[in-house]
């Protein structure tokens, strides 16, 4: 593979990584607080759809982004309501979210756009930083992305600071490791968990928005195509570390970008062999990471006094 191809591969790998990254970062925070949401796929779908709908309606991708974040937040809160307040099974509540996201986005899409499709979706402009973007090799890989991509990377490093080094992080970790200790310290466990669930939902919504308005331009039913689950695999693989999640997301983004290129490079091999590459990779990562993983001790367990 020559240099130009490789640069293109890495650049689009970064782009492909972003939806997964946003969802994985949100899930990292939620899981560190003890809330396990397996419904990211549904939230991302709803976010992707809302982003297209509202970007078209407002004429700006930012309008779409805001709508996706709000929709994701609402779904995260719904999951929190079930899992944290009502203390029902978090996994089953997450499954319900998958169905809701699938149904609501498909329903809304067919209603709003019918068979005609969306047409032109206002997308995010690339942030070309004069000088930097022109650097050979590194320029196109690191620069010349959408503003949102930088926000994602910044969020990863920001969270990597917040979780171990701030009072907020201390509170989040305590709630996920030993809610009883947090309660005894005067922390409202359920409130913190609701906030974490809402944050996780909003981030998944943003991930969906990135997918439909920055990585691609438009909505197709079921377009998230497993990225929500790959994001959860990233969280586990990264052992609940935000920067690790960034690395894992990049790995999957690059694998995704590579499989598309490999399809055209090797027309003799069935293209499906390449499509499954990221999924096989995620499966391997899951098996490799899980054995030694230290998961938040109270993950998935509702907290009750007494």
């Amino acid at each position, binding site marked *: 593979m020559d240099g130009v191809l490789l640069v293109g591969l890495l650049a689009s790998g970064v782009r492909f990584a972003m939806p997964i990254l946003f969802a994985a970062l949100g899930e990292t925070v939620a899981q560190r607080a003890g809330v396990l949401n397996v419904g990211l796929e549904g939230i991302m779908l709803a976010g992707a759809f809302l982003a297209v709908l509202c970007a078209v309606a407002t004429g700006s991708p930012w309008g779409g982004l805001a709508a996706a974040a709000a929709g994701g937040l609402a779904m995260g809160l719904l999951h929190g309501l079930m899992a944290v307040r009502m203390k029902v099974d978090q996994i089953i509540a997450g499954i319900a979210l998958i169905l809701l996201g699938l149904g609501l986005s498909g329903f809304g899409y067919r209603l709003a756009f019918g068979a005609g499709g969306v047409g032109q979706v206002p997308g995010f402009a690339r942030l070309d930083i004069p000088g930097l973007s022109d650097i050979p090799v590194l320029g196109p890989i690191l620069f010349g992305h959408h503003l949102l991509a930088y926000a994602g990377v910044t969020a990863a490093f920001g969270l990597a600071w917040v979780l171990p080094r701030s009072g907020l992080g201390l509170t989040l970790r305590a709630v996920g*490791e030993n809610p009883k200790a947090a309660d005894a310290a005067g922390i409202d466990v359920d409130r913190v968990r609701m906030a974490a669930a809402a944050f996780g939902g909003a981030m998944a919504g943003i991930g969906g928005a990135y997918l439909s308005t920055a990585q691609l331009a438009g909505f197709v039913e079921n377009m998230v195509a497993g990225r929500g689950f790959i994001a959860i695999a990233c969280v586990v693989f990264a052992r609940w570390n935000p920067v690790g999640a960034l690395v894992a997301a990049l790995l999957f983004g690059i694998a995704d970008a590579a499989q598309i290129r490999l399809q055209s490079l090797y027309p003799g091999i069935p293209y499906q062999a390449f499509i499954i590459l990221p999924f096989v990779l995620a499966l391997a990562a899951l098996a490799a990471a899980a054995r030694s993983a230290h998961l938040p001790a109270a993950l998935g367990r509702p907290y009750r006094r007494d």
Partner: protein
Amino acid sequence: MAQPVLAMDGLTKRYGEVTAVRSLDLAVAPGEVLALIGENGAGKSTVVNMIAGMTAPDAGVILVGGARAALSSARAARALGIGVVHQHYALVPSFTVAETVALGRVGAGRLDPAALAARVRDISDRAGIVVDPAAQVGSLDVAGQQRVEILKALSQDVRLLLLDEPTTVLTPEDAARLFAMVARLKASGVAVILVTHRLDNVFGVCDRVAVLHAGVKVADLPVARTSPRDLVSLMISGRTGDSGADGLAQRLSSEDLTLHQPAADPPGPAPARVPARAAAAPPPGPVRMGLEGVALHRANGSVAVAGLGFALHGGEILAVAGVDGNGQSELVDAMAGLSRPDRGIIRMGALDSGQEGWNPRALRRAGLAHIPADRRRNGILPGRSLTENLLLSRFFRPAAGRGWLIDRTRAEGEARAAIGAFDIRTTGPAQPVGRLSGGNQQKLVLARELMDDPAVILAAHPSRGLDVRTIAFVQDQLRRHRDRGAAILLVSADLGEIWGLADRVVTLSSGRARGPVAPGDTSREEIGGWMAGH
């Protein structure tokens, strides 16, 4: 009397149809140490939770410094100067001591490690507690974790310190250190409430004692004006001079009194004392289980037991004495097939711990029974019926069914028989076990583990958390099976129980084992000293 630091007025708390605490009036003055005692289930924990802001009373008020207080949360209680050290520590193992003390007391922003450490040192200096701010909480021993809990409680201006069963898991030495600290706090004008079921604590450091019985305060008087015998009678029956409770009182109280208070008047001769062995005990039988050079590690990798060997004979009760957390649970897990030793070997019949098949099922087939320390965690299926719970650990026996099917009719018959034989209070074999009381759950576990007349019985804290009558029942069952010829390993931290049951004693302390020795050849003081690591 000075203005009380804390006063409870008509406090009542109900859980469903059960009234846990009824119309409680109680006050504690500055510089006073109040003991709050009672049997398990008397309502002590409920009182603690109400003072700590963890439970809201259904009726009545709590006054702090004379003003009516709304203790709606732990934070609110703390803001009023109430510090609480809970019986079960609520700590995050991955946190450092400094982070633990900071939790809930810092803003959302940056944590300053140096400032946090300085604060911990400041508090620990004042209270005279030694602890490293940078140590990880999970790496501390039980006494160290308690010191962290106390630091947490003292980390703001405390007017009242509430200690909930603080000595249960401490060695006598650590308990002495704790009481020295209590004395210092008392001298500085802090009020202390000591919730306990151990009378030595009461007579050691307390000024006044209040007794709870079935949710009602039945006594509240200066310690100097009461006796252990009266207090035990009050705890058990709610009144003094209860003759039926007297024998039990002596069995319960003598241990604590002789261990830490050799100077105190012994409560007279002990006619009701149960002999260590039945009169016509069988001679020691064949070796049923053997350990050679066994080394075990904890879940966090630290050494739990380093080099332990003994042989467990049929017809004996071998007690493993020790303060909790000194390797007992690791030992029982390994002997039950739930884990393997790091070094050394455990043998039972043809099985040994080096084999691939060292697992609970194989051992149980060979005649092992296991009464677990924490029945709620691994002894029962709370949502399932009595019948099904009696099948757990027995479902694979050929007699439990035919081929791959389970014989439900037979199982239900067994359940009915067990309910009768063990006096399990239940609505019937179909009732979910989670609805039973703790004592009845323990009887169920006992029934299950003993019903097939096992050759070896591992009994870990079999009477912990039970009421006095159930304790007597449990101990009688163990004696009966010992006399039948079973080999019994009894893990206990209660010297009274050990003296009442055991034929030989092994102590575990900080990974080191002492013994076995027969109780008749040693004294409680010596065993207590071994438990403390001497």
